[in-house]
């Protein structure tokens, strides 16, 4: 089982990327570029959701990692 703090770090990094991608998606004027950024947004969203589920599962199985 992976340490939950590591997963949390990755999750935070991904959320960071997600918001930067959103800024670029909104700022771009070219439609093609915007589509690529929005696709990236969707993918990172999915991954973030998956990671959050995994985090819940970890915290459920190992209560001492809960919190923080």
């Amino acid at each position, binding site marked *: *089982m*992976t340490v939950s703090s*590591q*997963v949390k*770090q*990755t999750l935070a*990094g*991904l959320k*960071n*990327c997600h918001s*930067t*991608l959103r*800024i*670029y998606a909104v*700022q*771009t*004027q*070219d439609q*093609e*570029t915007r589509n*690529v*950024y929005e*696709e*990236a947004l969707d*993918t*990172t969203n*999915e*991954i973030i959701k*998956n*990671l959050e589920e*995994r985090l819940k*599962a970890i915290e459920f199985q190992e209560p001492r990692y809960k919190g923080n």
Partner: protein
Amino acid sequence: MKEWIEVLLRTVGLFIVIFAAIKILGNNAISKISSFRLISYIIIAIVTALLSANVIKNISLGLLVLAVWILLPLALEYLSLKSKYVHDLVYGKGKVVIKQGKVMEDQLKQARMTGEELLSELRSKNAFFMADVEFAIMEANGEINVLLKSDKLPITSKAMGQKVAPKSEPQTIILDGNVIHEGLKNLALNEKWLQQQLETAGIALENVFIGQVDSSGELYIDTFDDMIQLPQPTVKELLYANLEKSHSDLLGYSLETKDQQTKNMYEQNAKKLDEILKKLEPYLLR
């Protein structure tokens, strides 16, 4: 006493007249105007000079000459816009001097050019080897334009099969410490965004000489004080690096986990992230 006043008034008046005439005739680069226009410019100049120096005593006659020399060429130009025949008559046509790598000698003779002069003109367009030239045309104003053979043209990203993000023109938004609102409007940004960007860079508005924003929203600043080292914008590279890190983290987790289902989850997500990274690369890195 009276004469110098008259000359002064004439000269100032003609200055304004000529300024208006230039605006009417339009701005053309001197190297690109037809000889016809050049002659009419010279005649306008001479008549104006003679008129203002009181050599031509009768003002109304002089102004009449000026009016004809300004308006007739203008009329001829409008006509040549409407009719191709008039256009070819007035401006002449371009002559093809090199076609498919072979020199058209009779066209050269018509253009009254020797082979040596042709080579010299080609050199001025950076074509030192005649073997490299696919097509050369002598334009109506005597200038030669050269098309090199396709394998001698500089490499483009298309030729290399690399995708590059489309970029359109940058907008200047700061000049001499002042904000240019038109530039901001063209990018659909407002002053608050600009202030935020300046804060993150740690520069005050009055220290900026030139500020330019490219089509992806990156601000480039040049300050008055050249000693200040500005952090170069690296947001895109950082974003790419962050995504790469997350990707390798996920791969690592998939190796550590013992549970098969979780392993699959991590692997799939890593794969998705990898695909997205490939798609984003031309936009973030190139």
